[in-house]
């Protein structure tokens, strides 16, 4: 559930021994107040090494629920950002269900800041890339052909950087550029069942085998 190790080159390394231990703890002994410091360290490791573990973070949020006096607002903020980066998976909502209102209301100002500044990008590596991936995902649900300007705004890139971005996706994601004299570049996105409804498989009318079996004697 949620995007596990992202595309960063660090995933070529073996999973750190800390990650291994923590994952084991969460699997075998999750309802244990003693593992709280390990889980907190693990959040910080996820941020710095661009890895992610929903189960470990939910486990920590639960422990914070059980012992509110041990909660760290900073860690909660980091968990939420990592969860945001996992969009379209609902991880962000999953985390919110476990955090009391009085804590998230403190964040309101924080999120206002985030929306305005790019400061957050220095704090959590991989954040911008994750948001861009999400934007591309929604674009491909929505558009068969998308104008360059619309794409540019969605991924927040312009100029030569955008050309590089396009080249990367042409090479790796099956994008095609169509030149239009009047409007400039159109990007043709790959076909899927959401932007090409004719590709949608019909789930409605399969008749189960056992029901057919009932009428075979009649037909025969």
């Amino acid at each position: 559930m949620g995007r596990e190790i992202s595309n960063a080159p660090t995933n070529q390394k073996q999973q750190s021994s800390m990650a291994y231990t923590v994952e084991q703890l969460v699997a075998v002994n999750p309802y244990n107040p003693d593992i709280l410091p390990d889980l907190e360290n693990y959040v910080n490791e996820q941020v710095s090494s661009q890895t992610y573990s929903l189960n470990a973070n939910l486990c920590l949020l639960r422990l914070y629920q059980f012992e509110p006096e041990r909660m760290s607002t900073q860690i909660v903020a980091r968990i939420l950002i990592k969860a945001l980066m996992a969009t379209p998976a609902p991880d962000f909502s999953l985390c919110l269900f476990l955090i009391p209102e009085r804590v998230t209301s403190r964040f309101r100002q924080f999120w206002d800041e985030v929306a305005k500044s790019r400061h957050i990008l220095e704090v959590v590596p991989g954040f911008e890339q994750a948001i861009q991936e999400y934007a591309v995902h929604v674009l491909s649900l929505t558009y068969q052909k998308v104008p360059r300007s619309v794409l540019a705004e969605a991924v927040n890139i312009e100029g030569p950087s955008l050309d590089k971005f396009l080249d990367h996706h042409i090479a790796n994601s099956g994008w095609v550029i169509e030149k239009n004299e009047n409007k400039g570049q159109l990007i043709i996105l790959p076909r899927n069942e959401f932007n090409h409804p004719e590709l949608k498989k019909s789930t409605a009318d399969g008749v189960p085998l056992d029901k057919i079996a009932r009428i075979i004697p009649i037909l025969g």
Partner: protein
Amino acid sequence: MAVATSYDHEQPIPGDSAAAGYDPNYVPDSVKSFVVHMYRHIREKNVYEIHQMYETSFQSISDRFFKDAPWPSVDSVAPYVDNDHVFCLLYREMWFRHLYARLSPTLKQRIDSWDNYCNLFQVVLHGVVNMQLPNQWLWDMVDEFVYQFQSFCQYRAKMKNKTEQEIALLRQFDQAWNVYGVLNFLQALVEKSTIIQILEQEKEGLEQFTATDGYDYSGGSNVLKVLGYFSMIGLLRVHCLLGDYHTGLKCLLPIDISQQGVYTSVIGSHITTIYHYGFANLMLRRYSEAIREFNKILLYIFKTKQFHQKSPQYEQILKKNEQMYALLAISLSLCPQVQLVEETVNLQLREKYGEKMMRMQRYDEEAFALYDELFSYACPKFITPSAPSYEEPLVNYNQDAYRLQLKLFLYEVKQQQLLSGVRTFLKVYSTISIGKLSTYMEVDEPTLRTILMTYKHKTHAVDSDGKITSNADIDFYIDDDMIHVVESKPAKRYGDYFMRQIVKLEGIMTDIDRIKLEDDSRVEILISHGIRSKREGGENHRGAGIQAGMSGIQDCQGRG
């Protein structure tokens, strides 16, 4: 062994039987007989008899003698059962369950009940139990355990009117109904029973569990295994109460709910499983999945509830039935996929919530209030698991958890409302340009593009396998600056309908053949086709019989 309860030392509290002259040491004959026989049946592993006594005798004795008083104390019945340690734990389990159902437990009683569960589960976990108990009872143990935990959290969170004695007791017995304890017991039962491995191995034919309904036919005990099994459902329930839907569903994973299983062997367990499964999916925006499961269970309850009318679970069954109709109404309003709902269920749904659902789909303030109402009626009783701070000014915070979940749910609904404007326009057009639609909606083009992308994001959820599924009844795609609308028509289930009619017609044809050949059985066949003919005499009957058959055929053709 746990100490006998000291309720007779408590101050009289409304509902407390100590005030009403209850004598804990008085043992009526029927109780004597009950414990003696129950004890023997357990020793002889006569599961059928145990079940009868547990379900029926216990109820009837309670109704006769203990309508609003507890059963005799365990100390007073112990002599009749050789002071058997395990039997006494089981007796106390029933004793407390009866108390919670008919009276209001005091804090001391709550703590003592916790003690009893600890002792009982420890005995089971140590593997020294060799009884066979009915699944109904084993399910009730887990169900009641989680219920008493939920009840304790609700009770503890109402700090405002607590007496000094109560607060002192709470501080002293801070381990009682501690969330770690509850979760760890359930987890321990799952692990010690190795039930997950058993279910895995069963798929490969290396184990027998579901086939025997969990019972052990090789001289062993079913208690640990089945408690472990039901504890998975217990964990799902606890996690839902905490708002952790993801982990709750994970705990349920080893149970395949697309099949029959031990969880369907007890109706209470079947309903609890699907109710929480459906609710968790609803909160995760997987509306189609929720609709599918609610539909199945509601149909099942419709067909079978008559058989449970006399059972002590009947009221609970009806309550959960109503709640699930409310959840179904919510799910369908957020994700209009009526084709997922069976005819019978749909009829019931329209009766109960037809009008409200129409108003909910209007996406205005009134609709918002209806979502609030239905959610609040049908949701689990969320809990705050942490102990209160006894220092601060004493407040009631028992509603906090519920308010958070409600707030997040309504936020989701609000998002849907914002997008309803888009839906209204999309319903009317098959194609429309971005420019035109932005004019109609009175927003600029970039804003409209954002709104359309948000619509896509909101109506496409990620399911449990990580795949994208669409909740939308109206969908679209954009080609440059042209919007193409795609309406997913509710597919008529032709296949199903034709099957039924083919079988029905075949039946009628067979009957008609019989009428031609057997004059004597004419009358029987007429009656079987619902015709009560008062006419006497031969020829008329024959004509009427053939007419019955013909009108049946016309019926089929007419509806095709």
